[in-house]
């Protein structure tokens, strides 16, 4: 499903954020990526959907050779992944409904299919009543759930989430974990970068700890492992 071989990422300013990561994540797994701030978690995740290009090494995601992928094929890769961004990245001028529908419109899906599917996921994240609102009219937790709805609306094989519970109170954080658990049960692979000690220690899954651009621990059912 996801396979990295000796991957390096050097940013234009000379910062090397990922220093030789090799990892294999199988279909249906649920993986936490933990580590201190600046460890390279976000960079590691961005390499998967090619927001950033690897400087060295090979990355395979869903049978796409990400490191060798031409610009024209990148949209196809991204349509098979659902990404929840740390800063949500919702389109401010579109309503909740339109934001979620957009991920299907780009695939040129039938309007009928779009309507049905968007209604389904809005119900799943509990936002049916807010469908006509604009993002800035929503709370942080609600915006986070819109981002999740958009990420899962085209039934991605892999859901990638960068601190999806950051800045949320425990109730909101757990309701988001319920959704993740749900779709993981349905067979979706989940990769989630997080600083949430409670969640990692309570809902035990595979834990990959990154420090200074390298994997220092890879443990099934492991704990968070940091004081904060």
């Amino acid at each position: 499903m996801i396979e990295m071989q000796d991957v390096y990422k050097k940013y234009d300013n000379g910062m090397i954020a990922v220093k030789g990561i090799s990892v294999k994540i199988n279909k249906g797994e649920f993986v936490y990526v933990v580590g201190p701030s600046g460890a390279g978690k976000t960079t590691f995740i961005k390499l998967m959907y090619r927001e950033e290009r690897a400087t060295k090494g090979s990355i395979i995601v869903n049978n796409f050779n990400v490191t060798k992928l031409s610009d024209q094929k990148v949209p196809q890769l991204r349509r098979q992944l659902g990404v929840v961004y740390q800063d949500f990245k919702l389109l401010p001028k579109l309503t909740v409904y339109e934001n979620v529908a957009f991920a299907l419109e780009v695939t040129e899906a039938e309007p009928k299919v779009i309507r049905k599917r968007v209604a389904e996921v809005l119900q799943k994240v509990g936002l049916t009543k807010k469908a006509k609102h604009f993002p800035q009219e929503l709370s942080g937790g609600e915006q986070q759930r819109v981002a999740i709805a958009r990420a899962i609306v085209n039934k991605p094989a892999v859901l990638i989430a960068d601190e999806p519970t950051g800045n949320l109170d425990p109730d909101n954080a757990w309701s988001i974990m319920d959704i993740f658990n749900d779709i993981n049960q349905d067979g979706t692979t989940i990769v989630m970068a997080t600083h949430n000690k409670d969640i990692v220690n309570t809902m035990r899954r595979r834990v990959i700890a990154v420090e200074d651009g390298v994997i220092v621990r890879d443990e099934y059912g492991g704990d968070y492992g940091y004081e904060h």
Partner: protein
Amino acid sequence: MNINTIRRHFRESFRSLGRNGWMTFASISAVTVTLMIVGVFAMLMANVSHIASNLEQDVEIKVLIELTADAEAEQQLVNAIAHMPAIADYEYSSKEQELATLIEDFGDDWKLYEQSNPLHNVIYVRALQPKDIPHLAAEINNLSNTADVVYGEEKVERLFDALSLARNIGFFLIVGLLFTAVFLISNTIRITIIARGDEIEIMKLVGATNSFVRMPFLLEGMWLGMLGALIPMGLTIVLYHQLYDVVAPRVSGQLIELVPPTPVVYEVAGLLLLLAIAIGVVGSFMSVRKFLRI
């Protein structure tokens, strides 16, 4: 691209016009102001051209025939002129006809000369190309039995120089203006797109192709151009008609007259519309391009 997608792009482009209210207004204003100036210059150019070609057509060469020439010699001269390739047409006028014209134009005082007519028999010659006139005149002057050849020499030459200068200046002004317009408008559109750079980035991250992102922007550029062209088109048509109605009666029968509005105002209006659409689409295309590289 299927029909639903095309419909979506249209819907999106209209919606974006409304949601970017001020920027839409700014872009349309930029198109409007520039095209209005272009419209004025285009009409000026049309008139300069019209006047120039009127004047050019009006210039003729007057060939005075030697008083000593007999009928046979005159016929030879006429034949020689008639066979020159640079000639459009010619007309023979006897000295009696010449005097009659003079009397008609300047009054009965000239009747005095009916007894002993001092005038020459004359051949009027028009050239196919006005700029050939000096050369043609010299050639005719070399034929035998010509007393003199007149065509307002220096005046005509200076007039032609002035007109072609005016035409060239007008042409460069319009080209310069158009460059300014493209620059101004693509800059305005660029500002609206920079403000939406984040949007474009998000669209691409969600899996939109470049053409999917670009299409609504191109359509929007087209609408901006079309909306911006409306006022300049209307003003060109209406104001020129009014100007013509006021000026035309006062200058009728004179050398310098305005171009009749039809069809030229409609041609200029059509040109403005095409120009505006091209500017809008090209401006959008150039501005959106650099945001698509993610």
